């Protein structure tokens, strides 16, 4: 297995070099200097700006420098827009993103599998039909509607009624506490941070779950219904296994393969963050930062974030194959 992982990693090196190359080339189609300096800059100003940005050097040199940063994971270039090293920016934005995306993915996956199991168990009956109608309904409503409804009913009205009873507000309409993006404070004052998390992150997470649980449920139900139609299910029932045993042991292990695929595909998006939620709830995560960087033509930030996401994508693909082999004995890594 280790030789498989190593081989896959080696195969992906040229792919990765290509991704980084393409990202850097595409960015350089437009000269960022003019955007930064506005109208009518002098030749000297342009030259000075070029040098300060580091784009006066030959492309090969810029490429080499960035690769070195990626290998050492030491992103010491400064953001052109925010004037702080990219490394510092990463440190500051990763945690807020993960605080939203990880709970969303975990909750939505577990809920999705759970509801799908219930629906598949009662396939074709009223319970199943009701759940599927709700799932389609949940999928059909726009993300933005959830945000607005969530902020109005979940935060604004709830807080008003809490205030009327002299209680502290439960969810903030938007905002974030900087302490949450510092791992040190989580170690020192976990209780306070947990409270902060409920105030600022719980509502965005709930909304994220609402948005994705419909899709998840429908997908997992389809997988399970397909599995329940297989011959080995009849064999298990003919053996005298009860419905629950058939569902939770015989079927579920077979259904794990599509489940793993779906979860692993969404792993890279954990880092990217839920952009819409971050923007509307003012959460200083990677998604919002990346959008800001693209608007400001902030090459160091765009390059670093994109290259990191690409790396995570490749790693999660390899991890997916390894997990397949662990779950399905027919898959051999070679």
């Amino acid at each position: 297995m280790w030789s498989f992982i190593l081989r896959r990693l080696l195969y992906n090196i040229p792919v990765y070099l290509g991704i980084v190359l393409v990202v850097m080339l595409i960015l350089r189609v437009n000269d960022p200097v003019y955007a930064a300096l506005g109208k009518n800059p002098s030749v000297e100003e342009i030259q000075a700006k070029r040098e300060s940005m580091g784009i006066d050097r030959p492309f090969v040199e810029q490429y080499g420098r960035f690769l070195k940063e990626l290998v050492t994971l030491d992103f010491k270039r400064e953001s052109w827009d925010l004037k702080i090293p990219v490394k510092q920016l990463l440190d500051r934005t990763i945690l807020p993103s993960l605080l939203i995306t990880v709970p969303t993915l975990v909750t939505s996956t577990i809920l999705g599998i759970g509801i799908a199991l219930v629906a598949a168990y009662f396939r074709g009956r009223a319970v199943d039909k009701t759940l599927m109608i709700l799932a389609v309904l949940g999928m059909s409503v726009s993300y933005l509607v959830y945000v607005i409804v969530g902020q109005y009913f979940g935060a604004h009205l709830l807080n008003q009624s809490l205030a009327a009873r002299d209680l502290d507000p439960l969810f903030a309409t938007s905002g974030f506490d900087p302490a949450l993006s510092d791992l040190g404070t989580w170690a020192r004052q976990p209780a306070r941070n947990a409270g902060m998390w409920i105030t600022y992150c719980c509502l965005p997470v709930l909304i994220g779950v609402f948005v994705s649980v419909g899709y998840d449920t429908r997908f997992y139900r389809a997988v399970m219904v397909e599995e329940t139609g297989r011959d080995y299910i009849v064999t298990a029932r003919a053996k005298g296994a009860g419905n629950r045993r058939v569902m939770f042991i015989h079927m579920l292990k077979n259904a794990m393969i599509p489940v793993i695929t779906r979860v692993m595909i969404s792993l890279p998006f954990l880092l990217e963050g839920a952009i819409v939620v971050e923007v509307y709830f003012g959460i200083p995560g990677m998604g919002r930062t990346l959008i800001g960087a693209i608007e400001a033509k902030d090459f160091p930030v765009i390059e670093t974030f994109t290259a990191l996401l690409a790396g995570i994508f490749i790693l999660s693909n390899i991890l997916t194959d390894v997990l397949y082999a662990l779950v399905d004995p027919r898959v051999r890594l070679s």
Partner: protein
Amino acid sequence: MTSAPPHPAPAPPPAPAREPVLRVRNLTTRFRTERGMVTAVDDVSFDLYPGETLGIVGESGCGKTVTSKSIMRLLPENVTRIDPASRIEFAGRNLASLPEHELRRVRGEKIAMIFQEPMTSLNPVFRVGWQLDEALRLHTRLNRAERRAKVIEMLRIVEIPSPENRMDDYPHQLSGGMRQRVMIAMALCCEPDILIADEPTTALDVTIQAQILDLMESLKRKTRTAIMLITHNLGVVAQVCDRVMVMYAGRVIESGSVRDIFHRARHPYTRALLESIPKKGGRVKGARLPAIGGMVPSLFNLPKGCRFSDRCGFVQDRCRAEEPTFGEHGAAAHPVRCHFPIETPVKISVRAAP
């Protein structure tokens, strides 16, 4: 291999004193479909005696498999309905109305089943030893070591080489014949009274078919398990069955001992089935095999009168108007569902199964 009796020692008809192990009466199974209710098995009655092999034959779609799955109640409950008048009497209970949790104690322990597709019938993600062990865990109080010994013993009985190693294999590591042996081991590990084999050899190649049939025969002799063998291969029936029940469009149309059916088949459909068996030396090169003209009628659109009337070479006006009952029409012999049963002996030889 000329016109030798199809079975070496024609089984004597079961002595009247013997009690059937399974008594099926008026079994009617309906499916709910998009086009309405359809009756897949219509008023089927038969007995199964201990230690005998009953063959159920017929074309695809005649209700053989639905009959067997109805007995085990393995059909999807949301679309199937077993008529409340149906009786499936086993060990003093009516399986047709037994609650699910009691039925689970019958399935696998008293009545076991093997299926047509050994390639897909085993769970692909569990070791075969685990799957055998599960049957023992569900139905016996043996401890882990005893179960392991039993699993190895069962695999040895079904002639799987080095069972200690094979039990740790996954199904995909075994050949089709091996998998069917595992299925048989799994079905027989709790020493059931009845083994229902639904086309157990159809998916296997010819040499393996013979091995599997021999295996079932020798196991039956050892354990006195009654076997219900569902097949469309009359050669297989001739080789291993004691009695035969012929089905057509959801109904039993003829039943009797193997001798009765192969030598004195009375229903035109049974005759046609026998004639469509390829015969050794009985066929000019290039000539077409005899086939039954037409198609099995759709269960949605059954002919009025006898269900075989559209395809029958001996059809008369009465056949189209009135459906014959199942009984001893004409000369007293084995029962048949035909107004005008054929009473001349069959003039064909049946080759034993390959």
